[in-house]
């Protein structure tokens, strides 16, 4: 009885994933323009959230930098979009974020986690100020126009970014690097003494996670057509991945994906119905989740599962 249950799980989970993947890949063939746009947003938020979890999930180092990387990607698109073909622009958006993250990591990750959190928190505002100063003093104009790309292309680029991200995240999680990252989160000192080059691993992982955020920013910029430092560097894009990851729960791989999908859709609804209240609602949900549901939805599912199967762990 048990054997067939396990076998079924090994079959229908990948099977379901494949179906979803195919549906998403062929979306433009059957869905309305509105659906494509909505799903682009949802995929974007999944990218932001899953990439955030790659580093901050296992290590416990809270990064508040996604908005900075997203903005870097946006500006890459704005500056280079007219000169270079789209795939290269997106690649450079990711690369620029990678370099910024390497710098930030090298500076702060050899110190206590609080310094990293503080530094990344102010990064958005800092880059915004620098760009504003540059635009006022050097170029004389504020903001830029971005090339226009049709919605289907934007969707597919985001889809590809997401697929590469999911594969990367899954690989890291299951590999020895995932093990090392988790050990850093548990007891960094002991991990270092067990042969893990903690500083290098933290910095590189952080940088890798930034690539996808930069790439996502580069493609999303083409949807907004006009951007300026205020639009591009918005703390909201650091807040949302944190909210989505914590609400979804980081104990399982699907947790952040679930959280992102739910909130991306929720944001869409709230923006139309209660545009003046949605930050209040989201902020409250974050606080309530931290207080009462720290393991997120995933944790809730685990708890229910344990209650159904019954029995406590024996102490050994």
């Amino acid at each position, binding site marked *: 009885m048990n054997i067939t249950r396990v076998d079924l799980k090994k079959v229908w989970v990948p099977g379901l994933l494949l179906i979803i993947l195919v549906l998403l890949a062929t979306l433009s063939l059957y869905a309305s323009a509105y659906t494509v746009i909505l799903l682009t947003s949802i995929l974007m938020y999944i990218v932001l959230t899953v990439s955030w979890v790659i580093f901050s999930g296992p290590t416990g180092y809270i990064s508040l930098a996604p908005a900075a990387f997203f903005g870097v990607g946006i500006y890459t698109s704005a500056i280079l979009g007219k000169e270079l073909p789209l795939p290269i622009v997106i690649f450079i958006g990711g690369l620029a974020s990678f370099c910024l993250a390497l710098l930030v990591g090298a500076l702060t990750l050899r110190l206590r986690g609080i310094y990293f959190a503080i530094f990344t928190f*102010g990064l958005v505002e800092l880059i915004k100020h620098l760009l504003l100063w540059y635009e006022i003093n050097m170029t004389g104009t504020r903001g830029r126009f971005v090339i226009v790309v049709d919605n289907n292309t934007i969707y597919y680029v985001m889809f590809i970014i997401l697929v590469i991200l999911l594969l990367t995240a899954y690989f890291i999680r299951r590999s020895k690097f995932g093990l090392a990252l988790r050990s850093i989160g548990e007891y960094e000192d002991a991990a270092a003494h067990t042969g893990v080059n903690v500083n290098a691993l933290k910095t590189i992982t952080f940088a890798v996670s930034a690539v996808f955020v930069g790439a996502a920013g580069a493609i999303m910029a083409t949807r907004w057509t006009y951007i300026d430092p205020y639009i591009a560097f918005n703390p909201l894009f650091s807040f949302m991945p944190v909210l989505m990851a914590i609400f979804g729960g980081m104990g399982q791989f699907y947790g952040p994906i679930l959280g992102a999908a739910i909130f991306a859709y929720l944001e869409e609804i709230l923006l139309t119905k209660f545009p003046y209240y949605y930050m209040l609602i989201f902020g409250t949900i974050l606080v309530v989740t931290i207080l009462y549901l720290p393991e997120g939805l995933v944790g809730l599912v685990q708890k229910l599962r344990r209650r159904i199967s019954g029995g406590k762990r024996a102490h050994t």
Partner: protein
Amino acid sequence: MIVTILDIVIAGLLLGGLYALIAMGLSLQYGVARVLNISHGEFIMLGALTTWTLYTAFGINPLVCLAICGPVAFLLGFIIHRTLFKRLLTSSASPGIFESNSMLASFGLMFIIQNIALIAWGPEIRGYSYLAFPVNLAGALFGANRLVTLGFAVVIGLAFYLFLARTRMGKAIRAAAQDPVTAGLMGVNINNVLALCFGFGAAMAGIAGMLISMCYPVHGVMGLEYTIIAIIVVVLGGLGSIPGSFIGGFILGLIGSIVTYFEPGLALAAYYAIFILLLLVRPTGIMGK
């Protein structure tokens, strides 16, 4: 030439006084209650906008608003700590986890408070004029409002420092900052002290907001920049050192004034440059352990 230098120095002290006040408040919250309150700037904003409303709508003298903003902000901070952060303290498995969770919770708080402010006051930039007449100081002209701000900041800062150093409650607070567990065993009511400190920190933010509103325009999203500046000052002064925050505030204010003289708009970048320098050379700050 001398006048220019004096100009810059005094402007730096004015800015520094504000920074010192904001940073001491945050230092109190982080040093004692161990909460890195990212929503600190929002309390500043609330103090500023409340003062604006009280003055422009009811004609209440801003300096009188001090007596309103301070206690109200204190109460708000006290309640928030007792309900939110105290609960987090009990549910967090380790101090490290509490530090993360409380910071994230304050992140959520930041958006909540900002949204409330946006609903209550709208997105427009507000300002008012009070004590805006110029005062001649050694050949340079300064707004009376700015001098009053500096005066208040220094007086409050010194008063608070004396409170910590001389009074019984102050000693209890310092003990709690050093070692909460032992302090608790020695009879210090830890729960009250933590919430009290958090409340004091919020009060200082509210008062700073009131002072800021006398000199600068204010609006709903002004808080973030002040939070970042407060954090940098706290790191500069040394995480957990309140005197360090006082000194660090003036240092950063002077630097800000100098940079603004040459290149307005790069002040925050200069602060971050100092931050980076600290991280490379002396992360524990000037007076940190």
